[in-house]
């Protein structure tokens, strides 16, 4: 197990390097430099700026400098927000993004797993059909449709909740963004849990447990729950990625000052270093979370663990 964990951690490093390289190359292969776009600068000023941003170095040199920075947590200066470094900008926005993201995942796990378990154990009842129906809608309606519609209903029409994150100081400002972000994940997790538990409950070893006179509740608790959760654990990686993606939309719709909103403004401003920095940050998050998920999986499945 330890060796497996060590191998997985080591394996994540080249992935991360590759990701940074691709993102870096994309930005630097872009036609025109970051300062070409607006007005024409005098050559000497342009030269100064380029030197300040090390744009006069060769690409490998720049990449090496960038990697060195990343290791120290320095993602370089922002091209637009002259007074801040990219790292400072991201660091300032991380807490709110994290809070909403973590709450959404938590909500999705609690609601999704419970709904899935209930639907599977009450298979083919009204309750089951309700859960599967809502879940189907949940996976089909994208966050950027769901979030504005929620604003329209709960904020604009009913006026129960603030339409914007900045419109309130209380916890109520978190409610709509978290639900909007969690909704598709609730749906995916509920479907996955249901299908997986049904599968496990039909297995030979659950039949054995029934023959041994175990109550349904005991069977679920001691025999079925753990294997039924395995597909869910594998799904957690994509779920984290989807929540990060969704957070861009949710932050945009609700005006949350998080990392995702920076991404949108930065892409509108063509702030290359900021977009690059945010991409690298997100990628690192996803690679890291996938690593955690893999280790979790190995921990839960004895056949991986005892290999």
């Amino acid at each position, binding site marked *: 197990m330890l060796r497996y964990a060590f191998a997985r951690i080591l394996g994540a490093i080249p992935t991360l390097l590759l990701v940074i390289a691709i993102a870096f190359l994309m930005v630097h292969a872009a036609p025109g430099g970051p300062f070409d776009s607006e007005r024409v600068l005098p050559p000497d000023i342009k030269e100064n700026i380029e030197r300040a941003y090390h744009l006069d170095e060769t690409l490998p040199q720049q990449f090496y400098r960038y990697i060195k920075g990343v290791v120290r947590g320095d993602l370089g200066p922002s091209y637009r927000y002259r007074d801040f470094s990219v790292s400072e900008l991201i660091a300032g926005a991380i807490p709110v993004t994290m809070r909403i993201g973590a709450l959404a995942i938590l909500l999705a796990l609690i609601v999704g797993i419970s709904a899935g378990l209930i639907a599977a154990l009450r298979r083919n009842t009204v309750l089951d059909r309700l859960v599967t129906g809502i879940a189907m809608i949940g996976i089909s309606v994208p966050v950027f449709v769901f979030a504005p519609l929620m604003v329209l209903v709960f904020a604009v029409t009913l006026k129960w909740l603030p339409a914007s994150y900045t419109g309130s100081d209380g916890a109520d400002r978190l409610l709509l963004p978290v639900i909007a972000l969690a909704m598709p994940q609730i749906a995916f997790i509920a479907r996955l849990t249901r299908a997986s538990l049904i599968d496990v409950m039909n297995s030979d070893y659950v039949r*054995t447990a029934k*023959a041994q006179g175990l109550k349904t509740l005991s069977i679920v608790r001691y025999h079925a729950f753990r*294997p039924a959760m395995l597909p869910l654990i594998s799904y957690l990686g994509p779920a984290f990625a989807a929540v990060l993606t969704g957070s861009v939309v949710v932050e945009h719709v609700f005006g949350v000052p998080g990392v995702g909103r920076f991404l949108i403004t930065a892409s509108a401003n063509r702030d290359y270093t900021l977009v690059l920095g945010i991409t690298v940050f997100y990628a690192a998050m996803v690679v890291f979370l996938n690593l955690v998920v893999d280790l979790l999986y190995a921990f839960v499945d004895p*056949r991986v663990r005892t290999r």
Partner: protein
Amino acid sequence: MALLDVENLTIRYAGSASPAVENLSFALARGESLGIVGESGSGKTQAALAIMGLLPANAKISGSVRFDDAELIGAGAAVLNQYRARRIAMVFQDPMAALNPYVRIGDQLRRILLEHKLCAADEASARTLLMLKKVGLPDPERQYRAFPHQLSGGMRQRVMIGAALLGEPDVLIADEPTTALDVTVQAQILYLLRQLRAETKAALLLITHDLGVIAGNCERMFVMDRGEMLEEGTTRQVFATPDSDKMRALLTNAPTLSAIGMSGALPEGGDPVLDISELSVSFSEGRLRGRERLLAVRPISLTIQKAETVAVVGESGSGKTSLARAIVGLIPIDSGRVTFLGKQLPAAVSRRRHDSRRDLQMVFQDPLASLNPAMRVSSIVGEPLRVHESGRKNHAALVEAMLEQVGLAPELSQRYPHELSGGQAQRVAIARALILKPKVVICDEAVAALDGTVRSEILLLLQAAQQRTGLSIIFITHDLAVVRQISHRVLVMYMGRLCELAANNALFGRPRHPYTRALLNAVPSPDPNAEPANAPLPGEVSSLLRPPAGCPFHPRCQHAVGACSASVPEPAAYGGTIVACHRATELDLRY
């Protein structure tokens, strides 16, 4: 008074014309052993599941199952759970699937004790350990913490039996408990069941397709076919004077070693068709680092004559299937030569010449898997013609004639494989193998997936083809009764090595290798009067990744001496028999 009383039990499934079980009535007295014998689809497992209340929700059940005068049909789970484990327990066929792969062995057993409050919570672990010891698990403390995949098949089935006996039930239902196991392990499990029953006095309901298993383990029995009971009585009585045609057919087709099968080897000096010389095969196991060699076949030599059938027999891990696949070139070989009709063949099938491919064919174990699901029977059987005889135009007629030869109606030629029964599918596979009139056919467990009667028909079909065209057959099997019936010579393999190569009569009359003898002993005899074997061959096959030094069989061999663990015995000739055993000359093994 009967402990378990089944009356007019009928089980139907929506969408199925005939009931799975119809009007089944039988009784089981305290301490008695009752066998149910029948082929697949006879409804025997359905009946057992009905008693346990384990049928799926879409099954419609009528009739009555009374246990100790309480009605179990229609009873709720709460009522049933008072009987399960404590009064009736069940052992299932496939112990790998029946044990939870995610829960430690000990915890699975302990849970039964806790759920039924069979003992104080703090004694549960100790009671579990005691049971693991009782069912013969070596090192029970370690196995307690093991997961099912870390145990061998035999050990898993021991665990299943231990789990069933934890609640000290009055009735133990065992559904094909040894079908998934090797024959020497089967003997161990049946021996264990007999021992435990003598001790616990539990009644036994033993479900099996194998008359040998019934004969040695049940006092009474009944026969089922297509959901109905055909006859019942004491085992001796049913075996001696069967009433139904089905039972007579089962007896005729029962695997038995005493039947006179082939008379023995063909006269020596016939045309050698296929010569295998020092062939060895290995696989690499595991991931990049820690990669190990699995030595599947150690150098083996064998020559097959025209019109000869050589059976290759062994248990799982013996390398018999790898040998077959290496001969036809489906897997790479480490060393050795395959000479076919006087010419050495390249190792890989893709490098072999067209004509050698048409003359060397194979029939696979799972008939359905060996037929392309997207092709109709006619194009499957006709494909060899398209490849090898594209010039000739009468393909359709040849296919039709071939189908007739293997006993398939012409209207089947437009069917897809999934529309065929197992026996029909295997006939199609045989038709495909035979249509080019090959010189050699290798049958890899070709009848293992088939029921007794169908199995006999397929074997007859192959023998007829042999008589007609002088076909040579290599028959890979684990089933000694089949070997007895169809082979001229027999090659016995253990852990990739040759143990013994002998003529049919010589092998079954005077086995020279201790392993051969153990194998023969392990086959349950379909004769209720035969004395059940008392001390089965101990232990199980060692890991192929870490084979024991010396003779691979020595850890299980009661005749082993120092030399056996020191060096690998070389195959040597004793009369017409080739034996690889250090003590071949001293031992006189009669079984």
